[in-house]
């Protein structure tokens, strides 16, 4: 079976615009595979280039070296088969919730009425039926995230890239959203590449957790399969013995990197 998304020997070096001599290697020697229907989380200390990896997978960023393969095809330009849920607010502020969700369909040439119908359906699925005519500034952060989720999923992408999608939410909303996402994923079985700095979240959601080393030049240093049966409830699962065991094992690897990353930030400051 071909993998949904493969990063092979990917390295990303950024050149400072003001001082061309100054270089910064965010990630290097990255080999990462997400199988079709697999939920993979990437955890790592802050500034370890997690978002860079996601941008490479989305085709928004060209890697300095290495290659990206999507369902066996080398990636050229934007990754058409992927949906991307951004960390920051990414809704178009001049569109209502409904128009935001239907935007992707509209871009793909779906008829207006058909697009609005599907968008409405997805809004209801993320619990925002009846909020379709609200503008982003009229909604709370949690509601905006739900609209983003609907906006990404309405296109039915084969690969879903998520960049700390719930990091800005309070803990209760977050658990609700995590459970919702798991439910939707369970039904559709898409390949998910999920970036987070929260190890609990990573273990609770994923089939596999990849640990990145501290930057600069970070790379995957650990790969842990999460063998907890599904369906899961993210709140309940956190007290199960297997969860704690896995948490301890991964934290062992992650802790050192977090400390390293912290030291580097102190040095830089």
């Amino acid at each position, binding site marked *: 079976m071909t993998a949904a998304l493969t990063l092979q020997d990917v390295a990303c070096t950024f050149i400072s615009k003001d001082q061309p001599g100054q270089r910064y290697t965010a990630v290097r020697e990255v080999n990462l595979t997400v199988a079709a229907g697999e939920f993979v989380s990437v955890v790592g200390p802050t500034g370890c280039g997690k978002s860079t990896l996601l941008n490479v997978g*989305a085709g928004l960023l060209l890697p300095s070296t290495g290659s990206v393969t999507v369902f066996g095809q080398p990636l050229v330009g934007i990754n058409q088969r992927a949906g991307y849920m951004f960390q920051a607010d990414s809704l178009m502020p001049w569109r209502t919730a409904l128009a935001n969700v239907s935007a992707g369909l509209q871009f793909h040439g779906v008829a207006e009425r058909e697009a609005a119908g599907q968008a409405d359906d997805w809004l209801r699925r993320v619990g925002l039926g009846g909020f379709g005519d609200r503008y982003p500034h009229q909604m709370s952060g949690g509601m905006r995230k739900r609209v983003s989720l609907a906006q990404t999923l309405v296109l039915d992408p084969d690969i879903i890239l998520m960049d700390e999608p719930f990091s800005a939410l309070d803990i209760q909303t977050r658990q609700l959203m995590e459970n919702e996402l798991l439910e939707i994923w369970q039904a559709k079985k898409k390949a998910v590449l999920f970036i987070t700095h929260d190890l609990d979240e990573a273990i609770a959601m994923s089939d596999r957790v990849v640990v990145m080393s501290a930057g600069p030049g970070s790379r995957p240093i650990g790969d842990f399969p999460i063998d907890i049966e599904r369906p899961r409830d993210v709140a309940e699962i956190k007290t199960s013995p297997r969860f704690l065991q896995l948490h301890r094992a991964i934290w062992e690897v992650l802790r050192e990197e977090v400390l390293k990353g912290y030291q580097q930030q102190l040095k830089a400051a």
Partner: protein
Amino acid sequence: MWNFIKPRGGNLWLWQVGLLLALFAFWHVMTVPGLIPPMMFDNDSQAAFFFGEPLKVAERIWAWFVADADIYQHLGVTLAETMMAFAVGAGLGLGGGLWLALAPMASAILEPYIKAMNAMPRIILAPIFSVWFGLGMGSKVALGVTLVFFIVFFNVYQGVKEVSPVVLANARMLGADRRQLLRHVYLPSATSWVFSSLHTSVGLAFVGAVVGEYLGSSQGVGYLILQAEGSFDINTVMAGIVVLTAFALVLDSLVGKAEKHLMKWQPKSGETEKL
């Protein structure tokens, strides 16, 4: 008593109207010959000669609008010039701003020229325009366009440059091609900047029309003022100014209405209702 007339939200307009009446009363008392002994001038009628008399100004306005009803043609011309100058200037500014913001090389080449044209006192182009386009409406519209264009142009340019990169990346991931990005991301973002400059640009279109008329024309409110000035008819000049001011206010409130309608997606502070 004081508590009743103390300025507050509810009687704000009363105070505003009262202030206007007080100003007119002051004007009246200071200028009508023989009402008070002359202070600044040698004789009674000089104040009226230099500053006009509010009653005569009102009489003039009444004659324009009701008795003779002969100002409508001139007002229509001035308003038509304003509208055309605004429409053409805003359209060109929008197009030019979008183009230069999305074509960095062209913008780099043209940068010094745009700076020079913006820095130039463009009112001075009026004589050239009257040579090119004659004394009719064309030269006034052209002058208004040069004034409006740069306001809109710079705002659109800025607006496109400041499109949120996340929103842009998101639209691309949702499958927008270049044309769709322009239509659905750059343009709405830029229009919000156009609207933020709308009050200024409509005002400047009006300035272009009136100044153009004043410098040479055969119709329009600026022409009326020019004629009156030629015969030292200060009351008519004042009447013209009052009419222009009133219409500028009307235009501004129309713009405010349009803005409110089209910009309802923009956050406003303080949307709560006190119960």
